[in-house]
């Protein structure tokens, strides 16, 4: 007796999935690409104290990291990834097509000791005396741009301005003088103004410089990876193309070898790809080149769960069982095997995550994700769908399952 209701349910589920898959392009385009695919750079800095006697501790590291982030933002790049790596390092990752890498690198890496010096070159105040974010663009009565500066300790500013009244005070970044305003009055409130022939841009630049100049420590480049945007885009395109070809082979292979179950495997494989991309998007994970390769490989591994199950079902059919009982026995017996195999893959991925550095960690996350997703799609969903199809009683011939009648042994 043919049970059409099962077939209808199967078609509804597949139809719903098909509807979801149309959003694949949209989901995929939301995924954050790593700098090796998009262009950008990653630098590992060693943090060293500015003055002797100063110690590099977590507070200093955090303050430095914050400053680095600010400097990158000044460079016009949003969402830089700045991480503190204990005991004394900061890792900066910037994936962006259009960031001016040279300029940014110079801006971040600059030891940039900001000093305020008198005519003799004696240091009066330092960048660290500025209030965080204390410099801004303001306007005088005639709407001419000027730069307003706030200091942490009004008293210090008052002393300095009193001692140097009427004299110029140079603002130096390292040993380069940036500007040389003259002190016109004793400033007691802690807020000063720097006036001059500023345009909107040059005022903003100076303000940014003053803000970014307050870097609390020295940064030394220890490891740099930088990728041009063209190279990144090319890598992405080629690797995706390779993925399509490899994927197409798998789909065809499953269909030819396993027939009806192969079709179900392909549907769940599509679901696997879709869900993996969706989770990557939700987790805000960054997809790197090895990550894509790992993902493509994950497709191969996901299909393994189906191969194990279907081989088992074929064996059971050959031993003379009916399709339904072969399906039941096959799925039961293969489950433990699949789970054991997946757990070892997970263990490897977890170890990889804990011992790996940034790009390898991304790779580990993707392989953990694909392993877990594949259990749901290529084990449970695949069983559910195949079960529905078998229970319609439409597919009773062993040939639907890739088994020839002549291979079926006598019980």
């Amino acid at each position, binding site marked *: 007796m043919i049970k059409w209701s099962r077939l209808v349910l199967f078609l509804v589920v597949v139809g719903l999935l098909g509807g979801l898959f149309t959003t694949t392009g949209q989901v995929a385009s939301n995924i954050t690409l790593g700098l090796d695919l998009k262009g950008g750079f990653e630098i590992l800095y060693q943090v060293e104290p500015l003055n002797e006697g100063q110690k590099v501790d977590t507070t200093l590291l955090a303050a430095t990291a914050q400053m680095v982030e600010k400097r990158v933002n000044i460079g016009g790049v949003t969402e830089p990834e700045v991480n503190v790596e204990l005991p004394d390092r900061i890792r900066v990752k910037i994936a962006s097509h259009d960031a001016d890498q040279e300029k940014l690198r110079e801006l971040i890496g600059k030891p940039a000791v900001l000093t305020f010096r008198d005519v003799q070159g004696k240091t009066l105040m330092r960048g660290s005396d500025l209030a965080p974010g204390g410099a801004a663009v303001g306007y005088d009565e005639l709407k001419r741009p000027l730069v307003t500066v706030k200091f942490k300790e009004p008293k210090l500013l008052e002393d300095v301005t009193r001692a140097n009244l009427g004299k110029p005070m140079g603002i130096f970044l390292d040993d380069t003088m940036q500007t040389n305003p003259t002190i016109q009055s004793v400033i007691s409130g802690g807020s000063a103004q720097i006036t001059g022939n500023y345009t909107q841009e040059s005022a903003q630049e100076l303000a940014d410089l003053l803000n970014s100049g307050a870097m609390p420590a020295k940064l030394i480049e220890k490891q740099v990876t930088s990728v041009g945007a063209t190279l990144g885009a090319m890598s992405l395109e*080629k690797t995706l193309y390779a993925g399509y070809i490899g994927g197409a082979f798998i789909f065809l292979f499953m269909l030819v070898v396993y027939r009806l179950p192969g079709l179900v495997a392909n549907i769940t494989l599509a679901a696997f790809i879709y869900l993996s991309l969706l989770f990557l998007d939700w987790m805000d994970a960054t997809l790197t080149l090895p990550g894509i390769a790992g993902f493509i490989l994950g497709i191969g591994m996901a299909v393994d769960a189906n191969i194990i199950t279907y081989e088992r079902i074929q064996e059971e059919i050959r031993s003379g069982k009916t399709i339904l009982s072969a399906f039941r026995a096959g799925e039961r017996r293969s489950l433990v095997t699949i789970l054991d195999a997946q757990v070892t893959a997970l*263990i490897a991925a977890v170890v990889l995550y804990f011992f790996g550095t940034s790009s390898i960690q991304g790779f580990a996350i993707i392989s953990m994700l694909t392993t877990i997703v594949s259990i749901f799609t290529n084990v449970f969903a695949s069983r559910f769908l195949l079960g529905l199809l078998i229970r319609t009683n439409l597919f009773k011939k062993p040939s639907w399952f890739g088994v020839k009648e002549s291979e079926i042994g006598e019980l």
Partner: protein
Amino acid sequence: MSYRALEYADKYNIVKNRKKFFVISWIILALGLLSMFTFGLNLGVDFKAGTRLDMYIGKDFSTTDIDAIVREKLPETHFTNVTAYGEKQAYTRFEETIPPEKLTEIEQALIAKYGDQVTKQESTVDPIIAQELVRNAGLAILFAALGIAIYVAFRFQFLIGVACAIALLHDVFIPIALFSVFRLEVDLTFIAAILTIVGYSLNDTIVIFDRIRENERVMKTKTIEDLEHLVNVSLWQTMRRSVFTVVTVLATAVAIVFLGSEGIRNFSLVLIFGLLSGSYSSIFIAAQIWVSLKKREMNKKRFSTAPNES
């Protein structure tokens, strides 16, 4: 139980011939060690410190011209000959870290010569960081092997855990040895690929041991011959699956090697070496090691119980 598998199992007994496979693996191991001790590994900047400069030229070019440009900008620096690869790209490696301004100068010179499409890719690593990376990579492999061995020993039995750990190290070693023999560059993605192999190579092995465990319930294994028969039949029963899986995964890895970006060509090569070695070792090594270990255990037991019986 599939009759075809049994037919093959009768025709060719893998387990009985296990010594041959051990010899093959020993030879590969010896050759690999020989190569590693004489030539070492071709370590990339990730592990050796220095700067690697990749240049996308996007036009036909001659490596000697680029060589000349690099030499002009960095006259005192030692670098490997500029090598062309992929679609109009080239790279060179410096044994010391090069400041970014110098690399930009080279890029500017290339743009002047070949046009605006020229871009560069840079990778610089400080010696201290390089040492740390090597240490972490080694630790990662050891811990992964240990973790998996413990899991397997717990889920199956102790001797299977041992066999798996040996097979695992076998699979990790083969790609490393091949990279040494073929002088391919070892970098960070190499480690990622090796660890993928760690996760994957045991997939096959576990499927086989699962089958052995299942068959053990219905087949008696009193003598070593029984044991050999059990393992041989289990191997042949899972053979189709072992072959099919490696074919599907290999297909994707091969596609990436030939069609994918140059940046992960080595990554995919490691995968291919590791996948092949992994399926070889699960069929011809892991289960066989277990049989040998089991045989020793059986012999020992016989000796220890003998005095009581007499």
